């Protein structure tokens, strides 16, 4: 069976990201369970903290750079780094080069250039590196996929998440209208421009709710925190769940009961 390959002899270092670590540990646990089931050896380096995206996108360039340095030094010897958050991967791919160019030294630039091709978003890692679509998951629910802006436009994930979801047994996919439109999170944008952010969210919710799905999933818990926060506020009959948690679910180990 494709999903039970124990001879991959692949080692992945999990960069969990600061907010998943703190707010959504179940996503991290799901990534570990999923990758180990696929025969990937997972390691976790406790010295990790944050990729620096929040600082970079808010204008704190020097602070973002110190996070970037930390990331490269921590992972320069890693075989593969897997990150269950497309916006953090986009930060590394799109913003690190500029930061190292401007503030870094020759050694850091070299280390970063060598590391970059080994940094993967989770769905990229599954489809492109492990080369698997059917991960042996079972999730008998109606699910709609929200494409995060960074996954869609920065990483060009394309149909990868849909291919993974299509192979999940029992899962019914419902397409989300206006898939390319931002949910309004935008990091500190959601508090700096809370009113506009909320207006964008209310537009997004119209599309999300009209799918009548039980779950809204994505590859970024940040968007899901935003969408899910509004769903919870409204006592809506829908929950959010990270794609990794769907892929980790099997009949024997269903989705972790969470709040």
């Amino acid at each position: 069976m494709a999903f039970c390959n124990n001879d991959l002899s692949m080692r992945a270092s999990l960069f969990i990201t600061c907010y998943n670590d703190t707010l959504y540990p179940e996503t991290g646990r799901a990534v570990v369970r999923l990758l180990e089931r696929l025969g990937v050896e997972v390691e976790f380096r406790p010295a990790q903290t944050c990729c620096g995206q929040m600082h970079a996108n808010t204008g704190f360039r020097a602070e973002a750079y110190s996070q970037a340095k930390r990331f490269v030094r921590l992972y320069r010897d890693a075989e593969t780094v897997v990150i269950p958050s497309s916006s953090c991967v986009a930060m590394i791919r799109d913003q690190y080069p500029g930061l190292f160019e401007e503030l870094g030294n020759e050694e850091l630039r070299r280390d970063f250039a060598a590391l970059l091709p080994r940094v993967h978003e989770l769905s990229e890692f599954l489809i492109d590196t492990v080369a698997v679509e059917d991960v042996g998951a079972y999730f008998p629910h109606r699910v709609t996929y929200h494409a995060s802006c960074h996954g869609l436009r920065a990483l060009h994930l394309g149909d990868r998440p849909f291919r993974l979801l299509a192979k999940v047994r029992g899962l019914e996919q419902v397409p989300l209208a206006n898939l390319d439109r931002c949910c309004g999170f935008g990091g500190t944008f959601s508090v700096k421009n809370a009113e506009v952010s909320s207006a964008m969210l209310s537009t997004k919710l119209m599309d999300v709710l009209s799918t009548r799905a039980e779950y809204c999933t994505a590859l970024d818990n940040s968007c899901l925190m935003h969408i899910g926060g509004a769903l919870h506020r409204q006592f809506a009959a829908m929950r959010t769940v990270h794609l990794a948690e769907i892929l980790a679910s099997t009949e024997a180990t269903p989705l972790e009961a969470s709040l």
Partner: protein
Amino acid sequence: MSNPVLEGQSAGASHPILDPVKAPPFPEAAFTILRNTQLRKNVAHATDVIQGKRNKLVEEKADWQELRAAGSALRNHVLENLGHYLEQFEERCTAAGGVVHWARDADEARAIILEILRQEQATEVIKIKTMTSAEIQLNPAIEAAGIKAFETDLAEIILQLGEDEPSHIVVPALHVNRTQVREIFARRMNRPELTDDPTELTGAARSFLREKFLRVPTAISGANFLIAETGSVVIVESEGNGRMCLTLPRTMITLAGIEKVIPRFQDLEIMLQVLARSATGERMNPYSSLWTGVTPGDGPQRFHVVLLDNGRSEILGKERERQTLKCIRCGACMNTCPVYRQTGGHAYGSVYAGPIGAILTPQLMRLEHAQTLPYASSLCGACYDVCPVKINIPEILIDLRAKVTDKEREEERRFFDPMYLGMIVANFLFASPRRFRLAQRMGRFGLRLFTRKDGWIHSLPSIGARWTMTRDLRGLPRETFREWWAGRAAPGGKRGR
């Protein structure tokens, strides 16, 4: 309610402020506008229609990405050789009988234009839609000199008669619907019998304008492109009002930003294709007018070009931000922008709204004003995807945010700003895994106070209230991921879970 446009604009101020120096911060302006449901409906509908047409026409073009790349390369080339092409334009335009003026800033440009109008002894002028004229606030200056300015673009007539301001660079009255247009026309043209039938409304505008075209001998235009090779000016439009202004008057004054130049006549092949498809979702715009200097017996016999800098040279000198000047003012970024689609243009406090406005206006203001505009974006990247000349708007937004932050670092009161303070503290915590772990534990403990029985946080104080005003937040879980991992890895630890 006698006037939905005026009263619906914003509570308190009936006339939106499009002066970045005086405009309120973006979040404040947006807060007011978001209550205007009529405006939001109009903006959402109009942007949907234009974007839908644009997408269809871009999809049918198999070589769209190549065209974009060509458009981008061409504009980059111009900016790298701007001095050369401007001088060439000046030389060729002058040789063809035009008079070229150079304006360092808005004051100089207004003074030059007013001086020409004085020499012409003009009491009235007709205008082709030009956003550059709004940038330098030309109309109020003209009116102050006792000269009447008549806009001739349908949307601009609606705004002028409705005492409103443009909210979009291509479709300036996109926030007004036809019922509101009828109301404005009925009142200001004294035509109570008008219905909201579009044909009838354009008919009313046509008869309103026709006598002005025939009467007023002086016209002011902007420019879509200046062609260095031939010294020509190019205007593209949809209504024919531009063509009228270019043929009937005796004197034509063209105001153009210095970045508008392109090298050769042939370059229009690329530029007109990407512009029409991106701007209005048309394969070709209905009217493309080109004129070169003065031709005896044909068209205006006196022709002036005012080349406006107004902060552009400074942008040109900055390596990353330079690409801002590649813009050909198609407005595609505005139509696709999820922020603009909620607020429309007035919230940006500048004639340049949407993503391009959020990067252009603060730069034209040398970041002394409009400092909140770079933050008026969720950085979703939709603008970069549609830009026909590949301006990486998110990259520039982030860059400008860094510049605004660097200015904040100098300010005494910065530590009273919870956002600033939060960023500094977060950086201190992220710098050490031990400190980060400690903060996670303290956060878990502290937030317990706010967590309700269902495990969710419904209300937070201070900056957190900006989140919980519309969104709940799940309370912090009992165990962070790293704690779980540590327990799992420990001998005899809880495997699996």
